[in-house]
C-alpha cells in the first residue's frame, strides 16, 4: 500500500507545478464557453464540472483529481477481478506521459468522467452484479459514463464483457445469466442508434458540417487511418517522446496502419481465446472509434485513455499471474 501512496504523491508532484503555470491552450476557451450545465443534455456531467471550475488552474486540478480517482478504480477493479493488488500497474497509469494530455487539456475532462463511469460500472459488474447495491452502482456508473462523453456508450460493451469474464461468481440466482445484461445492453445500444437517426448519421457527423464528405472515402481509408493512429499510440507507449497533440498519421505506411489494426484484432482474439480481460477492454474501447470517428479526426492521446486503461489491466494481470506462479514454486 505504501508504494501505491508513493505513486500518488509522485503523480501530484509531477503535475501540480505545470498546472500552477497553465494557460488556456488550443480549444480550451471554446470548451469553457460551450460548457453550460443542462441536466440530461449531451456531456452534462462534464459540462457541469467545467462550468463550476472554469479557470485554467482549477480546471486542470479537477482533471488531475479525476485521474487519481480513475487510477484508484483500476486498482479496485483488479481486486474485484480476483487479482492481487499491483502497485506497479497503478503507478504506470498515474505516471506514464500517455495520460498527460488527458490531465492537462480540458477536452480530456469528458474522457476522464466517462472512464470513471465505465470503471465504476465494471467494478459493480465484476462481483455479484444482481444485488441491489451493485445494480445501484451500475446505474451511477452508466449515468456518469453517458454524462461524461458520447464515448461513454462503451459501458454497454464493457459491462456485459466483465460479466461474461466473471461467469464463475458464486451464489448467482438462476435468472442472472450473463446473457441477460448482454441482451439489455444490445437493446439499449440498438435503440440509441435508432433514436439518434441511424448509424450513418452517427458516422457522418463531420459530413453534415461540411468538413468531410464520408462518401468520398473507402472502408480501407476509414479503418487503416484509425489503425495507424492505434499503432502510433502503441509506439508512443514504448517511446514517450513520440507523444504530441497532433501526430502525422497520414504519413504512416500501410504496413504500420495494418499493424495497428492487427493489434486491435489480436487483443480481441486474446480476450476470446485466453479470457484476457485487459486485452478485451483495449479491443472494445478502440473498436467503436474505428467506426464512428471520421478519418479527418484521428484517435488522439486523450481519446486513447480508456484503451490505455485496458493495456494497464493487461500488465496488472500478467504481474498477478507471475506473482502467483512465483509463490507456488
Amino acid at each position, binding site marked *: 500500500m505504501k508504494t501505491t501512496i508513493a505513486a500518488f504523491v509522485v503523480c501530484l508532484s509531477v503535475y501540480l507545478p505545470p498546472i500552477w503555470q497553465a494557460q488556456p491552450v488550443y480549444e480550451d476557451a471554446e470548451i469553457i464557453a460551450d460548457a453550460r450545465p443542462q441536466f440530461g443534455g449531451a456531456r452534462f456531467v462534464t459540462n457541469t464540472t467545467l462550468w463550476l471550475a472554469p479557470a485554467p488552474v482549477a480546471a486542470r486540478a479537477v482533471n488531475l483529481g479525476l485521474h487519481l480517482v480513475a487510477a484508484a478504480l483500476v486498482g479496485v477493479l483488479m481486486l474485484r477481478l480476483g487479482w492481487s493488488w499491483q502497485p506497479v500497474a497503478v503507478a504506470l497509469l498515474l505516471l506514464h506521459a500517455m495520460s*498527460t494530455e488527458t490531465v492537462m487539456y480540458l477536452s480530456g475532462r469528458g474522457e476522464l468522467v466517462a472512464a470513471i463511469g465505465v470503471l465504476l460500472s465494471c467494478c459493480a459488474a465484476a462481483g455479484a452484479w444482481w444485488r441491489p447495491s451493485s445494480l445501484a452502482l451500475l446505474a451511477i456508473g452508466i449515468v456518469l459514463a453517458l454524462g461524461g462523453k458520447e464515448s461513454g456508450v462503451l459501458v454497454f460493451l464493457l459491462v456485459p464483457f466483465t460479466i461474461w469474464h466473471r461467469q464463475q461468481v458464486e451464489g448467482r440466482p438462476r435468472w442472472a445469466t450473463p446473457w441477460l445484461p448482454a441482451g439489455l445492453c444490445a437493446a439499449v445500444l440498438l435503440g440509441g442508434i435508432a433514436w439518434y437517426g441511424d448509424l450513418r448519421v452517427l458516422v457522418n457527423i463531420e459530413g453534415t458540417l461540411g468538413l468531410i464528405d464520408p462518401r468520398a472515402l473507402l472502408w480501407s481509408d476509414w479503418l487503416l487511418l484509425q489503425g495507424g493512429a492505434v499503432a502510433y499510440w502503441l509506439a508512443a507507449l514504448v517511446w514517450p517522446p513520440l*507523444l504530441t497533440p497532433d501526430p502525422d498519421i497520414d504519413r504512416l505506411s500501410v504496413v504500420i496502419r495494418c499493424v495497428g489494426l492487427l493489434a486491435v484484432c489480436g487483443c480481441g482474439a486474446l480476450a476470446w481465446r485466453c479470457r484476457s480481460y485487459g486485452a478485451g477492454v483495449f479491443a472494445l474501447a478502440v473498436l467503436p472509434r474505428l467506426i464512428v470517428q471520421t478519418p479527418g479526426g484521428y484517435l488522439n492521446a486523450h481519446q486513447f485513455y480508456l484503451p490505455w486503461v485496458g493495456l494497464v489491466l493487461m500488465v496488472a494481470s500478467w504481474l498477478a499471474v507471475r506473482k502467483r506462479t512465483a509463490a507456488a514454486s
Partner: protein
Amino acid sequence: MLAWVVLGLLALHARSYALVWTSNVQLWTHAAAVAPLKPRPMNFYGLVLVSQGRWAEAEQAFTVVASAPDLPWDSKWALTGSRNLRSLAALRRRYGR
C-alpha cells in the same frame, strides 16, 4: 527495482511533457517539432511565430501548410496556408521588417 527505475524515468518525461501543455507557444512548438510536415500543427506554429514577430520563420511554416496535399478527409489546409501567406505578406508590407 528495475520497474521502479523505469517508472521514475517515465515520471520525469511526464513532467516535461506536462510543461508543453502550459501555453500555446510551447504546445505548438513541440507539435511542429514532432510532426514538421503536418499542416495543422505547422499552421498553429506559424500563428504563434506571427504573434512573436518572427515573420521569416512563420513564412516557412505557412509554406509547409500551403504545400500540404489535398486528402479526401483533410482538404482545407492548402487553402488555409495560401491565405495565411497572403496575410503575412500584407502584415510585412504594413509594418516592415
